[in-house]
């Protein structure tokens, strides 16, 4: 495993282009585009203000930079560096900006969610979509990019509009049976739309592309409900994480619950592998000090850590949440299926330092990773069943069915990993710190050394 040198960035804005060739980073009001392999700067663009949001177009030809405070969006072209485009939302303000899937339209959401403006880069045409709903996830594009679902609120009722992205033709518009719609998400095959209610009510509604209600699911009443939701890559399963610290899996034929994953405080099953991170401060002798100071630039007093496998009756540290306050830190907040759909990773908020990996074939708990600090972010390798996670420490953690490893990020200034994102081919990983970033390259050629690293 190799690490690149460290680059500066701001606002954690680092994106690898969808084709995997470029790395775009924002430093204050500058946009830097590098080659992923050589890390040489290919282009450097200067925006009008500090960039708050940056996004690659789907064809990796354009980059969108949004400056919400000024209501400005600037678009840069990689092919034609002198080509420029500036969209000014004016006095109405801007809170969100994104590319349409075709990479030729930009959707801007104005302040107060007054409307969504669709700007076409082809025709300069502007379209408005009124009454968008301000919620957790109000807009979702289908995976193939042909449809967009938008949550709307009219007359105190929730509606969903389905647009054809090609020409923004309103395909369907229907009312949903929700009290307060919180989000919507297309299934990966783009045929089913999952709509869920706000946390006050546990309710998931499944709509067909043509607006028919396929099914609705509610696990319980009165208590706080859904916190997160994820489709399996095959659209076969819908995982619903809720405030009761459980994940419920629905199937795609009957839309009934198949199973329920609990997050117990004690792991008793001997089939579950429990990795516990153990920190160790190396005992240094004078010789070590002298040799170290001469030979390498490694941080001397860095805490070393490694995973140890714990034996079954394993107690997980639980933080008792303050249930009286709003948005209590309890329940399953993040869910992610692995690319092959065989594993599901979850995080329960009142066990913040633990990531759970579930086997979707056996419908059982496969592994539990307990870190010393709270987990900030985890993401699956887009190619392999490999999970990367970070905890805000200078370490990167990786899990695979073969084992688990904790890797120290070599840096002088104590580079702390706050977020990470995989390269689309799964060979490298962008580690994002507070103001820096660094690339981590997986050893793909010689698997033998790789497997040696993994401690099982």
């Amino acid at each position: 495993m190799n690490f690149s040198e460290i680059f500066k960035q701001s606002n954690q804005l680092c994106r690898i282009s969808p084709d995997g060739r470029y790395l775009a980073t924002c430093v204050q009001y500058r946009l830097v585009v590098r080659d992923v392999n050589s890390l040489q700067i290919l282009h450097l663009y200067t925006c009008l203000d500090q960039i708050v949001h940056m996004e690659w177009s789907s064809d990796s030809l354009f980059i969108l930079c949004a400056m919400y405070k000024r209501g400005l969006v600037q678009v840069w072209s990689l092919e034609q560096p002198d080509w420029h485009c500036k969209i000014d939302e004016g006095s109405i303000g801007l809170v969100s900006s994104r590319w349409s899937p075709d990479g030729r339209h930009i959707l801007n959401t104005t302040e107060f969610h007054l409307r969504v403006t669709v700007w076409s880069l082809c025709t300069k045409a502007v379209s408005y979509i009124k009454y968008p709903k301000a919620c957790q996830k109000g807009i979702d594009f289908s995976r193939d990019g042909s449809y967009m679902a938008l949550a709307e609120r009219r007359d105190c009722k929730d509606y969903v509009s389905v647009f054809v992205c090609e020409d923004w033709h309103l395909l369907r518009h229907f009312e949903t049976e929700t009290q307060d719609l919180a989000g919507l998400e297309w299934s990966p095959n783009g045929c089913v739309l999952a709509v869920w209610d706000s946390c006050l009510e546990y309710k998931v509604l499944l709509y067909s592309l043509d607006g028919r209600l396929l099914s609705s699911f509610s696990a319980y009443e009165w208590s706080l409900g859904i916190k997160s939701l994820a489709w399996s890559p095959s659209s076969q399963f819908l995982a619903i994480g809720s405030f009761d610290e459980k994940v419920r899996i629905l199937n795609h034929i009957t839309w009934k619950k198949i199973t329920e994953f609990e997050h117990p405080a004690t792991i008793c099953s001997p089939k579950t592998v429990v990795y516990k991170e153990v920190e160790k401060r190396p005992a240094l002798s004078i010789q070590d000090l002298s040799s170290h100071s001469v030979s390498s630039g490694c941080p001397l007093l860095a805490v070393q850590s490694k995973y140890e496998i714990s034996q079954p009756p394993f107690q997980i540290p639980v933080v008792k949440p303050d249930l009286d306050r709003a948005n209590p830190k309890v329940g399953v907040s993040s869910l992610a299926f692995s690319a092959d759909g065989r594993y599901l990773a979850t995080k329960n908020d009142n066990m913040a330092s633990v990531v759970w990996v579930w086997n979707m074939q056996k419908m059982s708990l496969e592994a539990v990773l307990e870190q010393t600090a709270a987990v900030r972010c985890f993401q699956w390798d887009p190619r392999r069943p490999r999970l990367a996670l970070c905890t805000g420490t200078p370490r990167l953690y990786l899990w695979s069915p073969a084992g688990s490893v904790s890797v120290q990020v070599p840096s002088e200034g104590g580079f702390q990993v706050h977020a990470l994102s995989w390269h689309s081919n799964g060979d490298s990983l962008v580690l994002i710190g507070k103001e820096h970033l660094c690339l981590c390259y997986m050893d793909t050629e010689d698997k033998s050394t790789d497997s040696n690293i993994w401690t099982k």
Partner: protein
Amino acid sequence: MGDWSMTSPLGVSMENSEISSISRVTLSSSRQNHDSLYSSSLPLSKSSHNVLSAFCIEENVPQCILYINQELSSLGLASMCIATPVEATLNSVPALNAMYELLQAQRRSQRSLEALEQDLLRTSSTLEHLQTGNYRLKDQLELLKREKSGLHEKERQLQLKIETLQSCLKSEKEEIQKLQNIIAGRASQYSHDAKRKERECVKLKERLGQLLIDKRDKKLAIDVLNYLGRSDGKRIQWKTGKAGTSHEGDMYKSLLNDYEARQQSLMVENSELKKVLQQMKRDMMYILSPHKPCAKASPGDDSPERGFPPAGLEGQDEVGECSRENLDQSCEKAREQLTYSIRLQWRRLKNHMEKLDSQVSLAQTQQQSGSEEAVPREVHEEEMQRMRLEVQQGKDFIHTQQQLLQKQLNSSFDDETAALLNDCYTLEEKERLKEEWRLFEEQKGNFERERKNFTEAAIRLGHEKKTFEEDRAAWLKNQFLNLTPFVDRKKYSLSDSQSALSIRSEPELQQSYTPAKLTKSSTYNEFSTTYSSISDGLPSTTELYRTLHLIQPETRHSKRGSWQEPSSPIRAENLFGKSKCSVRCRDPCILSLDKDGDSPI
């Protein structure tokens, strides 16, 4: 309790009254008896009673007699009249009889009186006991009453508490209801307000949008260097109705595609399941079919089992066809057929399994409780028969063998062997005799030893006797010597010293003391002398003389010395030495006596 206490004295009084009446009765009867006694004794002690009793005086004797006669007759003792009715004189024999009877009666009554008195005592004691029990029970009752009242009080308090709690609960419930109502009201109010606000918000937004549009916001603009081509390279199309319909079509197409894909996957799954089913069916048939030859092999099998395998085979063929059809055509009918065949097969399998189970259990029971079924029983019996035959054969074999042996023995039993046998017998006899002899010898030896022991014991006895005699002689000599008045005191000390020598001499010493003490009683003295003369052996005259001669100065007790007998000259010398010694040291003896004066002797 009160009732009891009230009634109990009554009962007691009643009893008392009864008892008193009875006693009065007895008393009266006794008095009567006394009277009669008195009257009967009157003639005997006329003079003495004359003055005292007013009942009978000399003048009214006949009247008295008559009176008593009457009384007696009235008492049932009239069978024998004490007086002749004519003369009115006392007939002594009946009178005495009457007196005797009266006395008897009186004694009887006394006895009964005593018994009754005892009864009375007993009853009174039981009464007392009952009364104490009564008191105790009363106390207990009182206590329990108090307890009860306490409990009542407690219960009452608890009841009160419960009531208050219930009222509390009720009020709480009401409170809850109220609160729930409030919450519901607030919720509805809140939702209403939220809606109102939302509407207002929407209105504001619309207004804002309107304003923004009206204002012709110059800023709102897009500044593009040159227009971009579409990502798919197509030219931009105009929005038309056609486009809309095409979108619909696309949507449905995609939906259809999805459904088709799903159906395809389901079909695949279905076919796989069918394959599995087929496999299962084949396996089932395979399991069922091998039963057939085995069933055919056993001719004694019962009909259902025999009948089953062919049916199974039929089913196999039939089902095989069915399944093949099923694979090809997946219409409703085929499915029905399939399920039907599967069910049939399954039922058969189940039946088969049940049969097998029952067979297994049957076999087990057979093992447990012997042969009960026909076929195994036959086998079993056959086996038994065979074994019996074998046993019989074996027995016969043994028998013949024995016979042969016997015959051989008999045939070889000639004179030679007879002599040999005889020799054997005599040898045996000899051995036995030898044994006996040995035993005899042993016994003899034992006897010898015993005899030896016995003689030894006799010798020892003789020795002991001798020593005893010697002791005795010495003692007697001492006694004799001490009988002199001036050595009167000294003998005690001497005898004391002697008694210390041997235990056996003690009783004799005692004996000897007594005569010394009781010298004054003449009869005893005589007795003692005679006794001593009988018991002692004869003394040799020479020694007697010598002793006499020696104790010449103390002639006063010469008579006594006559029966003194020292058994051996040495002993005598010793004795004399002693006596001499005693004489010599008289003074110290006296001194010692003074010392002895304190002793209990």
